[in-house]
């Protein structure tokens, strides 16, 4: 951790207007990413994890807008960059891959043609002719018979192979940061294992930092160095993966870990978190998790906790964090 920070997100707010007033999908999100690390961004649907990462690339769709905060990437504020520089950043130093590779690829163009588009946007990345460069990208993501596959159409690829193509296009510019939004959620377990293995290899080979967005804590255990847990638009805990699994501090993190069935640990009943996440347009007073929290006290329902340092490089947003066992 002696290297300077790669990314620092400070107090990021993303708002969407609704008939009932403005809703903050991300509300004061702060976290950091170091070069070459894999950071897990974990939370349930609607917690703001995807919109936060879209904001990093300034891809939040209208009428949504980034209303405040700072995004420092390699020392410069992404929110201040002119659009022309932003376009060079996307797919260059900062790339993103999505959940469903089949909808991200255009069915009427060959895979090679679509990889060539990366070189159109970033001509400096290409060495030699386009075909060879595209084949090299497919080879990097371990697609067998890469030279011939450049001419294949997306429908000739399986979901796993298509996701490899997306990863290949994402890392074509040797980005410092790859944002992977649920890249294995649509894939089968055996293929998921292959893709996770590929992401680990990419990190090692290219020293690319990865923000891995997922709702599945089980995946993060053997992939991520650190984990940021989000709930109702806010970061509620950030920690090294090992510490988080060993001793979660936030009761929500604890609830997520306990409600997750694990191989080899058959239980009569799963622990469940009662209720459901709050409507972002009608947030409770005080802590957003208080209505579902087994430890909530009067203070939790009155006063909103802040994300505060809690021991060794950890942060937790809770008035009464869990102690180490």
């Amino acid at each position, binding site marked *: 951790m002696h290297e300077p920070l790669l990314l620092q997100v400070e107090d990021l707010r993303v708002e969407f207007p609704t008939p009932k007033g403005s809703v903050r999908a991300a509300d004061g999100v702060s976290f950091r990413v170091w070069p070459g690390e894999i950071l897990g961004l974990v939370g349930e649907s609607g917690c703001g994890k995807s919109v936060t990462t879209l904001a990093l690339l300034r891809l939040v769709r209208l009428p949504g807008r980034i209303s405040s905060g700072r995004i420092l990437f390699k020392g410069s504020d992404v929110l201040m960059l002119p659009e022309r520089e932003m376009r060079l950043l996307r797919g260059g130093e900062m790339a993103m891959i999505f959940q469903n590779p089949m909808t991200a690829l255009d069915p009427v163009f060959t895979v090679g043609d679509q990889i060539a588009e990366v070189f159109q946007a970033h001509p400096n990345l290409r060495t030699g002719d386009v075909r060879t460069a595209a084949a090299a990208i497919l080879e990097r993501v371990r697609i067998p018979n890469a030279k011939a596959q450049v001419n294949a159409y997306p429908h000739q690829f399986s979901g*796993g192979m298509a996701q490899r193509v997306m990863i290949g296009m994402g890392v074509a510019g040797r980005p410092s940061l790859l944002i992977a939004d649920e890249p294995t959620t649509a894939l089968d377990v055996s293929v998921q294992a292959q893709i996770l293995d590929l992401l680990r290899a990419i990190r090692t080979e290219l020293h690319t930092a990865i923000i891995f967005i997922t709702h599945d804590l089980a995946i993060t255990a053997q992939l991520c160095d650190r984990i940021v847990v989000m709930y109702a638009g806010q970061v509620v805990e950030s920690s090294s*993966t090992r510490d988080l699994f060993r001793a979660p501090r936030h009761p929500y993190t604890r609830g997520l870990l306990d409600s997750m069935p694990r191989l080899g640990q058959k239980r009569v009943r799963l622990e469940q978190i009662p209720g459901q996440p709050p409507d972002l347009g009608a947030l409770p007073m005080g802590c957003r998790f208080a209505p579902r929290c087994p430890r909530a006290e009067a203070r939790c329902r009155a006063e909103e906790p802040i994300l505060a340092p809690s021991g060794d490089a950890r942060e937790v947003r809770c008035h009464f964090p869990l102690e180490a066992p």
Partner: protein
Amino acid sequence: MDLVVIEDLCTHFPVRVSTGRRAILHAVDKVSFVIRRNEILALVGESGCGKSTLGRTILQLQKPTAGRVLFDGQDLTALPPGQMRSLRRRMQIVFQNPHGSLDPRVAIGQAIRDPLDIHAIGTSDERQSRVEELLVLVGLHPDHAHRFPHQISGGQAQRVAIARALALHPDFIIADEPVSSLDVSIQAQILNLMADLRISLALTYLFIAHNLAVVEHFSTRVAVMYLGRIVELAPSREIYARPLHPYTQALLASAPVADPDAPLRPPALAGDIPSPVDPPSGCRFASRCPMAMDVCRQVDPLLTEVEPEHWVACHLYPMLQQSSNLNHARTASPL
């Protein structure tokens, strides 16, 4: 004690491959097993293995190409439509996407009441009170009856789908990936609800799933499916402790381990599941199997009981049986 007996069930679809040639897609191919009363039999496999088609074929929502399905002794494939309709009350299905299975224009209460109306059960007042009773049974409030699907969450919608499935007092429920589209904290709620209902209502489940950790937690027996075939079937505890089929072993080794300190394993399987159109002769897993022998590419292995209650379709095991002389193993293999 067998509620459902499936015998040599096949569901084939005629398709055209990209060259325009006609071919047969073997979605379910010569599948035989039983579902016992009050058990939770999990049907596990990767996408395209045929598990959902098998579930739909058991309920005759899809006509089988061949084979029989006996439900409580009656052959569903030979039943006249009228008798089938009345027997349908006893078998229900819950789907993966709860919002997709609810009509957005129909209030929750009416959605649950529909089966009672269709089967003309009780008076209007009785139906109304049954709807309220069902809402409470699945952990909702009677007031939810007036809401519409877009006004409830995914977890609540799945509770509605379960309530609707229970309306006619079924004894058999097929749950096709019922928690896959739900968040983890909500998954646990629905699984616990289903476990409670099985006990209080003496239900039998066929639980179709791909998440092995969920299946281990939830099921009493597990059937593993690959390319239209059941390749292994055993009590849950047994199959997780000692998976025999190389595919089951690979699936278990591929599941993410929720422990940062566990050693990292290389991916257990390379490549993807082959196409169920014109599947290879011999064992269908042979092309990806690390243990494949010559015989595997030529002879189709039968699902064989290699140890009491533990069935596997793999050429490795009749040999194991001979060499270790497992005298309690009963085999149906012609080899």
